[in-house]
């Protein structure tokens, strides 16, 4: 009994601590928004960044930060933050709209190259769902499958309807789990980066002496394949590869 009251008390305390720590980013966010409205974009950027450096994040924080960078004319950082916002909330039209808008303004267009049609297909399915939505859907299906297994083999009630339901739910579970894994791999395991430096050379090797492969432009999205010393080996959306200095890009 004593143990129970201790754990209840500690839980309440934890919630209170959590509430107070969330309140701080909220105020910071409102303050940064005010600065944005007054067109003090540098101050607004510092405000949004301070929320992130405290270890908190949310789609609107990244979105507003992207807007502030956009207004400053920093296309690379704007696109970087829109992409971070989209990863947290792929359902938001504003995020999608601004990302598309900003990407249209990059001086080099590389989108639209489809190398792996199967990947693109799964990407198009999962792109409008959050990872959590897919994960909870898989959980729900998993619980239903377990419940049906329990009914079928634990009780046991043998009925064709239960068997059909079990097979159908199992198929859905496999599909949902695959999509969840795909989304996780695509959004979190694959390292993507955005070029943020105004001038960035993409070279054929990880050194200044290597030949110039192409000239990077702020806002271009790349996939990081490997890293050596101060360089990332990156893959562009049009499937061209090269080495770029780490400080020229930011990982999403």
């Amino acid at each position: 009994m004593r143990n129970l009251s201790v754990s209840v008390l500690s839980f309440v305390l934890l919630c209170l601590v959590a509430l107070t720590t969330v309140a701080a980013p909220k105020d910071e966010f409102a303050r940064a928004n005010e600065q944005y409205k007054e067109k003090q974009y540098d101050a607004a950027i510092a405000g949004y960044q301070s929320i992130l450096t405290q270890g908190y994040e949310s789609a609107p924080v990244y979105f507003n930060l992207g807007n502030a960078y956009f207004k400053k004319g920093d296309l690379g950082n704007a696109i970087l933050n829109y992409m971070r916002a989209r990863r947290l909330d792929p359902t938001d039209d504003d995020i999608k709209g601004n990302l598309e808008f900003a990407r249209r303004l990059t001086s080099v267009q590389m989108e639209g190259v489809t190398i792996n049609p199967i990947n693109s297909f799964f990407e198009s399915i999962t792109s409008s769902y959050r990872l959590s939505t897919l994960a909870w859907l898989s959980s729900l299906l998993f619980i239903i499958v377990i419940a049906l297994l329990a009914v079928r083999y634990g009780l046991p009630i043998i009925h064709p309807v239960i068997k059909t339901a079990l097979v159908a739910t199992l198929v859905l579970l496999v599909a949902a789990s695959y999509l969840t894994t795909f989304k996780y791999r695509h959004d979190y395991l694959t390292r993507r980066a955005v070029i943020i430096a105004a001038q960035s050379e993409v070279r054929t090797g990880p050194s200044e002496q290597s030949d110039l492969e192409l000239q990077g432009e702020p806002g271009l999205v790349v996939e990081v394949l490997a890293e050596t010393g101060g360089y990332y080996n990156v893959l562009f959306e049009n499937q061209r590869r090269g080495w770029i200095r780490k400080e020229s890009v930011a990982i999403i």
Partner: protein
Amino acid sequence: MSAKTGNRSVFVRILLTVVVALLAAGAAVAQNDVEIEVALSPQTIGLNEQAILEVKVSGGGQNVPNLQMPALPSFEVYSQGSSSNFSIINGVVSSSVTYRYLLVPHKVGTFPIDGISLTVGGKQVVGNKVMLTVTSQGQSTSPQLDQQGTTPQGNTRDYFLQATVDKKNPYVNEQVTLTLRFCTAVEYYSSPSLDEPATTGFWTEVLGNKAPYLQKINNRTYKIIERQYALFPTQTGDLTIGRASITTTVATRVQRRDPFDLFGDLLPQGVQVTARSEPIKLTVKPLPTANKPEDFTGTVGHFEIEARPDRTDIEVNQPVTVTFKIQGTGNVKSVAEPTIPELPDFRIYRASSKESTSNAGDRLGGVKTYEEVFIPKRPGTLEIPALAFTYFDPDRNKYETIRTRAIPITVKMAEGYVASPDIPYSGPTMTIGSQAQDIRYIKDQIGSVHRSGQLILTSPLYLFVNGLPVAALVGLIVARKRREKLAGNIGLARARSAGRKARKRLSRARSLANLSTYREFYGELSLAVMAYVADKLNVSPHGMTGDQLADLLRSRQVPDSSIDEAISFLRQCDFARFAPATPSPDDLTKALATAEQVMVRMEEAKFA
């Protein structure tokens, strides 16, 4: 084919027709109804052109007799075949045969064609008279064609390919018609295969092939196949249309060299030949810069524009689709969409655009259609203004601006309308948002804030929710396994339930622990211990003596001290039950405690 052989084949056809008609009906000849109609088209031709003479013989009978043609010395006559038509309506058989001849004139003048006749049952039927005028005017053989039809030695050629253009100094994007003529004076056996000319610097569209025709060049009759192209120069300066070539197999005049080769002339000789055209040089002029309108987008030709709304009476925020149609001759593919000015009363979306090309003679033309969706923002009488379209007319050497008419739109207040600057219209196939000139505004709410890098897949709640059903399933499987095991092993089941049953008996004994029921009390205690051991060892408790019990326990390696304790307790119980002395309440409490202790010992013994 000569006139002679032509006439012969006509004769054969007529003969066949007659036989078929006779077999079909086998009736008497209706002689009186036979008529001959003669028609000429056209009635005036140039010296190098040809006319078609049609003779239609119609009559109620089945027997169409032989046609007699007059001599036509001023023409070369080629039979073009005949067609016949039979019908039987209400038992009346009617028939007609139409003979077609091609007339190629030799000289200028007006020539009557008269005396086409046939004899039916001794009576002559004569066709009507037609006049054919041959002028020196009309399409004359071009000197070029004459030139090309002759070899440098002055002989006529058997075949040649000629390429001509209608203008050599066009404006950029103005149509130049390229005509390829393949002329053969000898028969060809395989269908000619054409290697198209190179037209670099032009946008090219094929206008099509003309029906083959005959033409006299240098007093030799050639069969001519003609193909036309519409070329639109896409750049200014000197451009060249490359050579075209045609390959086919033609009949040749074989000169007999070997006096013993008797069959040289009799067997038809075919030889594969290739005719090439000459390249054509063009100088393309730029469009004049003087008086060039601001909105000119490079369209050259002759066009008309019209605008048609699908309705003019609507509610606020309802769409009106206006179809803008630009049609005429010229390169329709280069027609740019009309520029719509800023209209504060409307939101405007592009719905679709399509084009189709067609030829008018040797000019390429077509229609370009644009559909624009106008959505009125406020009620009232609004107007979609007249839209202008500018093109350059090369024939008149000037820029022309044409306009649609302005379209008045009556916009009614919609029910429940609230003046709002932007209600998105969700109509079909249009692009919303492409007109945005700025990013969307920042968000006021911070949304769901969480620690960075926190992933749902590794959160305790998620793991717990997914672990719970697994645990439940495992528990269920374990429980089921246990039940199955028990169902298959009575001994184990009895051993497992021994403690529970013994506790029940003890509690029953406790309720009997008073002086009036002490015998039952001891009996119950004794049974509790005995049954407990019997259940544990899976033997029957009935009729078992203390010694048997001791032996059984000993065989299961139960310690002797525990066995002695149990045996002495059972003896004590028997003694109390059957002795005449009444026990004290204290004895009963003690006996209960001892029974419990004995059972604890047995439990500890584990029974190997």
